[in-house]
Structures are given as C-alpha cells and as structure tokens.
C-alpha cells in the first residue's frame, strides 16, 4: 500500500462519520473549532497536559489521547500528520493506548497548529490531563522491568559459573579456577544485590523504623544472610564458610520473587487502567453560552451551575444537567450498566460522563465536579477499594505474629543445625525465611473482593463497602420492600367490567380512541390493550379531544365502520371525572369510561413486571433463596405481582414499621435477610438487614444507606451480585486454605533442611501468584443470565 492509499483509506474511514454526523458503530468525530484549539495556546493551560522537556530550550512534551484511531496503520498516519508540522521535534503514538507523546518547541509552534494538522486527517487530539499519574506509573513499570531483567540476566550467567562446581570431580578444578569462578559470580551478584533487591531492603528498613513487620523483612534478611555467607566464602576460601558459595541460589530466588512482583504489578496496572478510563471520560472543554448570547468554548473547570452548554454528538457531557433544547440518544453504559442507548428529550436529565450519540443538545448545568453522579461514583469506588473487609483485617492481624513465628523458627532451625553442621545452618535459616508466604495470606481476601467489586461495577452495581460482600454471600432470604422494584412504571389492562349490552372489546376500542390523545400511563395501557387479539373489534375515531390534567380525557368518538354513525361523547379517566361511584373496595388503579348516560366500563390496571423479573426470581429460587415481598401497596396488585412471579410470601399494605417487624421476625428465625429497596425512605429497614441493595436511580448515591447500589434498573444485577458474592467467598476460602496449607507444608520442610533456597524462592513467588490468579477468575464470572 502506498502512502497515498493509506491516507485515503484513513480519510474514507473518517469522512462518512463527519459528513452525516451519525454512524452506528463509530462515535462520530466532531472537530474542535479553531477557537477551542486556540484556548490551548495559553501557556497556563500547557501544564495540565504537558511538561518541559529537557531536550532543548523552551521545549515541551505533551501527552494527548488521539480519538478516531482504529488500527496500527492509523498510528503511522497520526505520527506523520503531527511530525509534518515544523517545530514538532518528536512524535510517538501508541496504538494500544491511543496516546501520543509530542515534543514540540514553543518558539516555533503552538499546540493548536499540530492539533489542527491532525484534524485535517480526520483524527482528533484530546489533551490527557492525567499525564502525571500515568507518567509516574510508567516510570515505576520501567524500573520494575529493569530490576527483573538485571536479576534474570545475572542469574543466568551466575548459573554458568556455578555449573563447574556442581559437575567437577574432586581434583578436576584447580583452586585458582574455583576462586576465579567465585569472584566472577560475586561481581555479577553485586548488581542483583544493590539494584534488583533495592525494594526488599528499603521496605524492610521502612517497616523496622515504624516498628511493624512485613513480608519484606524475612526476604531481606534471607538475601542479606546468603550474600554475607557467600561473600565470606569468596574472600576467605580457607575460613568456616569457604566450602561452598550460594550466589546461584541467591540470584535465582531474587529472580523468582521479582517475577512474581512484576506479574502482580501488571495485574494491578490493568485494574488501575480501567479506573482511569472512567476518570478520563469527562471532556476538557465545553461550549458555553456567554453574555453576548454566543456559544464559546471554555475549559470545564470554568463552568458554573446554571450555565447553558451545547453538547455535540460524539462528545461526553461535562456536568449533570437538564436538556433544554433538542433531543438525542445517550450512552450511559459505563455509569449504569445499561447497555442500550437511551433517549433524552427536553426536560430529561443527563449525567456527566455519559456520551451524546445522535444530535446536538443544549443543557442547563445542575451539578459539577464532585457533586455529579459521576463524581459520586468515582469517589465511592475509591473509598470502597480502600475499605478493608473483616477477613482481610483478621489476616493482617495474623500476619504479624506469623512473621514473628517465622523469624523465631528460622533462628531455632539455625541453632539446631549449628551443633551438627554449622555451614548448612545459615542456609536452612535462609530457606525458612524465604519460603514462608504471609503475602498469600494477606492477599487472599482483598484480591478476590476487589476483583468481584470490579465485576459488579461493570454490571452496574456499586459496592459501598467490601464487607457487604461477605454478608451478601450468606443471605438465604431476599425481601423486596416495594412492588416498584419488581414492576415497571408501565401499567397494563387487567379485567374489564362493562355495562350490560357493551362488549369488552367494544369498550376497549372506544376508550382507545380517546386514549390515543393522552400520554398518561393509564391511557397508554388502554391504547396498548386495543391492539391485543382478545379485544379486537371495530375501531373508533375520535374528534375534539381535550385532556384535563389529573382527571382524564373527553371527546366525541364514532365507530369507523359505520359511516356517519352516531357520535358519542365519551369521558375516560378517574371515577370523579366520569361521575361514577368509585369502588371503595378497589385496591388496584382503575380507569373509567362513561358516556352521556353514565358509566360504561371500568378498566382494572396492573403494573407490568420488569423485564427478566420472573427469571431473576426463578434463579434465586434455584439457588435456594426464599423470596418475600413486603409492599405498601394494596392487596390486589401485590397478589397479582406475587402470583405471576411465584413469590412465597407477599404482604400488602405494610407500613415501614411492619416491614421492620417482618424482617426482624425472619432474622429471629436465624435467616439472613437481603433487603432490596429504593433506598429513599426505608433507612432503618435497610440498615437492619444483613445486606441491602438500593436502586440508585431515585437516590443521591452519597445518601444511600445500603451496602450496594444498583445504578441501572435491571433486577438481574441483584441476582448476579448474590451469586457472585457466594463465588467470591468460596474463592476467598480457597485462597486462605491454600495459603495456610502451603505454609504449613513448606515451613517444616525448610526447617528440616530439605528445601534449597532457590526452591523456596520459587515456592513463595508461585504461591502468591496462585492466590492472585484465582481471584482474577472472578473478573470474568457472569451469572446475570444463566443460573448458578
């Protein structure tokens, strides 16, 4: 492919999206206006995404996220586009992260110039404001890689030097040669000791100063003892330790330990990366209506509540707000787990961090920064990830005496062996120090719980504290405290009662003619019923329909088939509006139809079940969990819902006190109760339950009193969480057992002197990896659609 064709391919990829403004899989790219780019030419803005580069005077290094990149070929096009601008010294684009690093000279070029050059090729550059955080992580990763490689290379070479000592027959190896090999090993062990082991020593020292004990102390001790013994052997071949050196063991176990740490760092980076994706969703700048009545692009941090902003398709909303003009489709998947695009018209609220997909809208800002839903979610995720579950606290408390025990065991083993074999004694102590793995013990719980919390966040459930997961895994009763958690806000027509001489289908069709002019949920339900086969009949047309807010609709209707037939004046609405005696016994919502002679028909309305409600309840039953419904609604509608779902125990007309009493009665039987509510006015019930869920679309997240908040409204998320929590606790138990058994088996082996130091290092590194890898299985678990 020549350069020209490559470019035209890239251009053709970008062009249709630009031209039509919509495209299904691609988020359309909207070029920044030249004006918005010039904002970035202010040197005060530079420090947010750039830093001074040491390469030349007045040189800056900027980090930008390139939008519109799909493949590796794009990264070359992007590089060329930016590099072709005079004054740009160096460009580096990563296809994997979609990030570009641009080094440019402030004397010759401004950021807007190279960003415009990029836009002409159909891409868009967004300044990356997290440049410092990611830079710090990159330095850390590089250093860890470098430490690991030094240890690995030196280990290989030291092994070469050790090889003759293992295979030579007595007398094969001259004393000078053996000495030379030891010297060479010592020289190559130095970088491992001084550089690769740096973190072990510095952490051990830090812990000693603080008077605490951590994993790194026995490791550092082990390394130091081995090196000291071997160094003595090298420089005093005739001395007490002159018979053998252990540089090969030393470098090998350092290499194994570092391999374990390196893999852990990579796994952690992946989690941090996904959180960062969430943080980076807010745009940098937004179009705000200024005093002159013109939209002008300003940085997001200059926004204030009450501003009117214009958001183009393809952009993310910068703040929570209400749509004032236009209507669009938004993607809230990352915030609520709702995978479908949602329609938002005038008056609808939009949340920061969601994406505008289809058309330009004007939004009145209502909340900014930390006050937005998005800000609350990020804050909750951060606070939950540092909270410590009880088992983890227990493991941490155990770790200290455990480490003390290990140090003691090492000392005792050393003393024991000293009497018979003083040379061997120190290496036995080293093996004991290195093989013990309290980090598997203290990693067991948090690793599994964090993986589970990440999984739940993806399916739209926020974990407010990790402790809740433990409680959630034990529940055997689920109580829904609202009919509304099981039903949608949509009503359906149930029974139809009619005046003698009027058929049910006739009544439905007459009512539907009026209902077509109203948006009230009851009207919608009647209209929907008119298309059902059982109510099929002659359809009616209406004329002169007026809607009386809160009462009903009124108008004249005529059957379509009878041309010029008799026109009836009809009223559809509440009992009062239709002037009929309301049925005092009725406890479901009803709509009435009346004509000039009075009552014509009554429609019983039922709340429609949420999608998947019955399968969710079924999965709960299959998992051995009883389902109860304590509702404040009337008996008939509660019974109706309960019967459809097969709920064991449904109580109607409950006051909050009734609900609390009912829950306490269950708890008195020794049941563990999970409350699912809307989190608004049932605080005591939620707080008293073993574990609790709140549906978060009604509440301020920060005020929700439940352990978990469901951000969307899928009932399946609750089921998924319960099953995931059970799985999580079983993983935690597996991890704890593994850590206990491993230590119980290996420490005696090491004390007995059967475990060489290198094998001990391998054992310890793999033990903590087993724990982390086991926990990561939870990342992929998906219970939302299937059963257990």
């Amino acid at each position, binding site marked *: 492919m020549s350069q020209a064709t490559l470019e035209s391919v890239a251009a053709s990829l970008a062009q249709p999206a630009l031209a039509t403004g919509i495209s299904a899989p691609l988020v359309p790219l909207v070029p920044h206006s030249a004006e918005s780019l010039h904002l970035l030419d202010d040197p005060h803005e530079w420090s947010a995404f750039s830093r001074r580069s040491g390469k030349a005077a007045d040189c800056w290094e900027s980090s930008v996220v390139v939008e519109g990149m799909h493949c590796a070929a794009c990264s070359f096009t992007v590089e060329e586009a930016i590099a072709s601008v005079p004054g740009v010294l160096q460009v580096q684009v990563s296809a994997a992260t979609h990030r570009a690093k641009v080094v440019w000279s402030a004397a010759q070029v401004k950021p807007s110039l190279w960003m415009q050059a990029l836009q002409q090729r159909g891409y868009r550059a967004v300044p990356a404001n997290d440049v410092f955080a990611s830079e710090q992580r990159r330095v850390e990763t590089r250093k860890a890689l470098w430490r690991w490689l030094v240890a690995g290379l030196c280990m290989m070479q030291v092994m070469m030097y050790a090889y003759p000592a293992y295979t030579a027959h007595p007398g094969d190896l001259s004393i000078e040669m053996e000495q*030379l090999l030891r010297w060479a090993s010592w020289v*190559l062990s130095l*970088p491992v000791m001084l550089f690769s082991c740096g973190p072990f020593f510095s952490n051990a020292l830090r812990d000693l100063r603080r008077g605490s004990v951590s994993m790194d102390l026995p490791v550092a001790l082990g390394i130091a003892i081995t090196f000291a013994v071997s160094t003595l052997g090298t420089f005093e071949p005739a001395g007490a330790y002159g018979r053998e050196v252990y540089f090969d063991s030393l470098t090998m176990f350092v290499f194994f330990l570092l391999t374990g740490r390196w893999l852990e760092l990579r796994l952690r980076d992946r989690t941090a990366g996904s959180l960062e994706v969430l943080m980076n969703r807010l745009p940098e700048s937004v179009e705000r209506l200024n005093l002159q009545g013109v939209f002008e692009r300003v940085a997001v941090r200059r926004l204030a509540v009450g501003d009117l902003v214009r958001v183009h398709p393809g952009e993310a909303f910068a703040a929570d707000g209400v749509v004032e003009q236009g209507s669009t489709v938004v993607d809230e998947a990352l915030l609520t787990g709702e995978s479908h695009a949602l329609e938002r018209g005038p008056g609808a609220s939009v949340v920061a961090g969601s994406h505008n997909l289809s058309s330009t809208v004007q939004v009145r800002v209502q909340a900014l920064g930390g006050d937005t839903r998005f800000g609350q979610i990020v804050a909750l995720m951060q606070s939950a990830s540092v909270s410590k579950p009880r088992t983890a606290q227990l493991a941490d408390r155990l770790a200290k005496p455990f480490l003390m025990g290990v140090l003691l065991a090492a000392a005792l083993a050393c003393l024991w062996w000293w009497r018979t074999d003083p040379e061997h004694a120190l290496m036995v102590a080293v093996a004991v120090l290195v093989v013990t793995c309290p980090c598997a013990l203290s990693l067991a719980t948090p690793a599994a719980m964090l993986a589970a919390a990440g999984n739940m966040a993806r399916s739209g459930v926020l974990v407010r504290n990790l402790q809740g997961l433990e409680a959630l895994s034990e529940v055997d009763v689920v109580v829904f405290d609202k009919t509304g958690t099981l039903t949608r806000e949509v009503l359906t027509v149930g029974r139809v009662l009619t005046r003698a001489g009027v058929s049910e289908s006739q009544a439905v069709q007459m009512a539907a003619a009026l209902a077509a002019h109203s948006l009230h949920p009851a009207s919608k339900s009647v209209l929907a019923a008119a298309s059902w086969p059982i109510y099929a009949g002659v359809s009616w047309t209406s004329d002169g329909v007026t809607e009386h807010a809160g009462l009903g609709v009124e108008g004249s209707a005529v059957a379509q088939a009878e041309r010029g037939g008799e026109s009836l004046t009809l009223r559809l609405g509440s009992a009062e509006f239709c002037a009929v005696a309301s049925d005092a016994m009725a406890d479901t919502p009803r709509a009435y139809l009346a004509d000039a002679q009075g009552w014509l028909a009554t429609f019983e309305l039922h709340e429609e079940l949420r999608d998947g409600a019955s399968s969710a309840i079924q999965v709960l039953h299959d998992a051995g969990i009883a389902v109860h419904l304590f509702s404040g609604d009337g008996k008939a509608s509660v019974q109706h819902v309960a019967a459809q779902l097969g709920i064991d125990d449904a109580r109607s007309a409950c006051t909050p006190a009734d609900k609390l009493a009912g829950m306490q009665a269950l708890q008195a039987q020794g049941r563990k109760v999970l409350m699912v509510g809307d989190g608004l006015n049932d605080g005591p019930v939620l707080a008293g339950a073993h574990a609790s869920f709140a549906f978060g679309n009604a509440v301020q997240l920060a005020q929700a009193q439940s352990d978990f908040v469901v951000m969307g409204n899928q009932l399946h998320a609750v089921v998924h969480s319960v099953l995931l929590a059970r799985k999580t606790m079983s993983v935690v138990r597996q991890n704890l057992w593994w850590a206990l058994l491993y230590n119980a088996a290996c420490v005696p082996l090491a004390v007995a002197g059967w475990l060489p130091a290198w094998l001990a290092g391998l054992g310890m590194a793999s033990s903590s990896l087993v724990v982390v890898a086991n926990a990561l299985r939870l990342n992929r678990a998906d219970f939302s659609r299937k059963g257990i």
Partner: protein
Amino acid sequence: MDILYLLIPLSVVLVFFILGGLWWAIDRGQFEDIEREGERILKDS
C-alpha cells in the same frame, strides 16, 4: 586451559555490556508497545 583466566573475566564484562544495552532499550520505551514494530511491515513508505 589458561585462556579461561581471560575468558571468564571477559564474560563478566560482556554481561555488563548486555545489561547496558537492555537499559538503553528500556529507557527508550521499547518494551511498552510490543506490537508496534511487528506492524511496521504494513507501512511501505
């Protein structure tokens, strides 16, 4: 076999050279985007 007295120290020096090369590679970020160089073949300008 006297040559070993020269070769073994030389091997130590060689290891340090290799380490130097690795440092250079890491410092230039060559391990951060492993796929990129493989995909360079797609480009023919």
